[in-house]
């Protein structure tokens, strides 16, 4: 049976989060933890492919115990199973150590149910890197297909997929052998409101929870902070520039001043007139 694994992450809502100005760290209390919005599209695509081709959708995440709620959100979208790997030894992982740990989890999942396709979101909104997806693909030695914005066909019998990969000025049609890994664009689908039966299932759902000791052939040195080649040496608020000149007065006066500033650059507008 076709088995799709979606990789997800629980993230603080960076739109809301406030920084502690003294320490330059995130004040996590100020922001709710949500399912990374890009990953919602990854799960939604997995569910749609399940509807088209049959099969099972599993989601996997690494994170602290509250990440269970992100898994439940995926069950609402329509995933069948959820796996959380959680352990102090995963803490402080950069993208390389993260892809290592998640790969170990996927290998374990694959022991009971072989994996045909892995789908990741384009990136996470707190890390903004997009590096973990291709990293997992390399570790599993399967082709990474990034920037996927349409799945044209999955041919299980002959073992290949055809997708569109978004380019700066269009897209390319790519064929790849299965298994492979997609990281998908937000434009690949719209995530609708979840159907009530899924909500009920999610409320009751208990994900599989694994620690490092539940995984197999793990090199502890490659996990967490220790396994991370990159370190954050300093975090700083950029120097505030001097700032601009305020145009004072009532709206009419403000517009008048602004107009004069714009008209000094008149040549820009005239070229636009096409005269």
């Amino acid at each position, binding site marked *: 049976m076709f088995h799709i694994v979606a990789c997800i992450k629980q993230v603080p809502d960076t739109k809301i989060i406030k920084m502690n100005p003294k320490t330059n760290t*995130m004040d996590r209390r100020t922001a709710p933890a949500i399912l990374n919005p890009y990953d919602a599209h990854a799960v939604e695509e997995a569910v749609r492919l399940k509807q088209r081709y049959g099969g099972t959708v599993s989601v996997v995440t690494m994170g602290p115990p509250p990440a269970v709620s992100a898994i439940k959100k995926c069950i609402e979208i329509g995933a069948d199973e959820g796996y959380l790997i959680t352990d102090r030894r995963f803490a402080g992982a950069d993208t390389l150590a993260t892809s290592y740990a998640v790969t170990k989890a996927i290998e374990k999942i694959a022991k009971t149910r072989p994996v045909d396709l892995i789908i990741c979101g384009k990136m996470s909104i707190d890390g*903004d890197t997009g590096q973990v997806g291709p990293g997992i693909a390399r570790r599993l030695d399967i082709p990474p297909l990034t920037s996927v914005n349409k799945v044209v066909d999955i041919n299980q019998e002959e073992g290949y997929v055809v997708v569109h990969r978004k380019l700066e000025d269009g897209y390319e049609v790519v064929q*790849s052998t299965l298994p*492979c890994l997609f990281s998908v664009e937000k434009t690949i689908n719209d995530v609708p409101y979840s159907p009530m039966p899924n909500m009920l299932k999610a409320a009751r759902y208990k994900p599989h929870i694994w620690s490092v000791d539940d995984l197999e052939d793990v090199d502890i040195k490659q996990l967490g902070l220790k396994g991370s080649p990159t370190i954050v*040496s300093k975090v700083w608020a950029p120097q505030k520039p001097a700032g601009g000149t305020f145009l004072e007065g009532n709206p009419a006066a403000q517009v008048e001043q*602004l107009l004069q500033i714009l008209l000094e*650059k008149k040549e820009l507008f005239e070229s636009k007139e096409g005269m």
Partner: protein
Amino acid sequence: MDFNDYKGVWVFIEQKDGEVASVSLELLGAGRKLADKRGVELAGILIGEHVKPLTKTVFEYGADIVYVYDQPLFKHYRTETYMKALLECSDKYKPEIILYGATSTGKDLASAVATDLPTGLTADTTELDVEEETGLLLASRPAFGGNIMATILCKKYRPQMATVRAKVMKALPPEVGRIGKVVEETVSLKEEDIRTKVLEIVKETVKKVRIDEADIVVAGGKGLGSYEGFQLIHHLAETLGGAVGASRDVVEAGWIDHPHQVGQTGVTVTPKIYFAIGISGAIQHIVGMKNAGLIIAINKDKEAPIFQNCHYGIVGDAFEIVPVLIEQFKHALSSDKAMK
């Protein structure tokens, strides 16, 4: 790993349709500074089909060496093939730093290469420096959703790698006739062994939004309140003959599509005039527009960070100011024409 074996700064040269991508030229400029500070050579690594003539451009923009992989296998970008070339080349010539444009190709390639080497990779860098003595790369980027900057180091591995945002670094003025050493290499991969095939490239014929090429960008933020309110931005852009930009919030709210997003996870723009209307000015937005020639900000909140990053600021209600501006601007332009 003996760090003394690793010498030189490399730039992955992205090319398409017989041209070197502008981000690669910018990185040659940035790489030149790093290489000079370290007293090492700057190299370009150029992969593709029929790309050898591009070495001339790479030298003119600052490289001392170009490693060239010119094979039919490389006609289209594929992670598997390009990665193989980069890994083999890095293994053979051992650079201390490799820079990639933070384009979809550059990010895809760098992520795969970093995993296989393995080494650390910093994404979407906006500032680069190097420690003269140790060769440690200081790669800085907006972090945590773009509210602050973080400097990332990779102390234990070589080469150090970073993807770098387009339009943030400056290309050097090309030095015509400047030449260097061409090193030709090949990879021994057979087409039938490669698991991915590009079947077709489709150029979208619909009029593309290229806000990064516009002279005037009018950008709106969450302060406009709603999709309907955001239409004000379209009106002003139309009047001025400019392109429409948007903050991340607005794109996530669905008021406009992602190609219009200015900032860290959108497009970097350097227009002659940039309007930021109802945009508070998170760092992740600022990095995408701070090099604009003239920045005009309109916001209700006098404390909004955007006012620290503009040339002229108006504290006020965009819905009171912009419609009047549109009208008076049209009037000024037409009376100006009448005088001619």
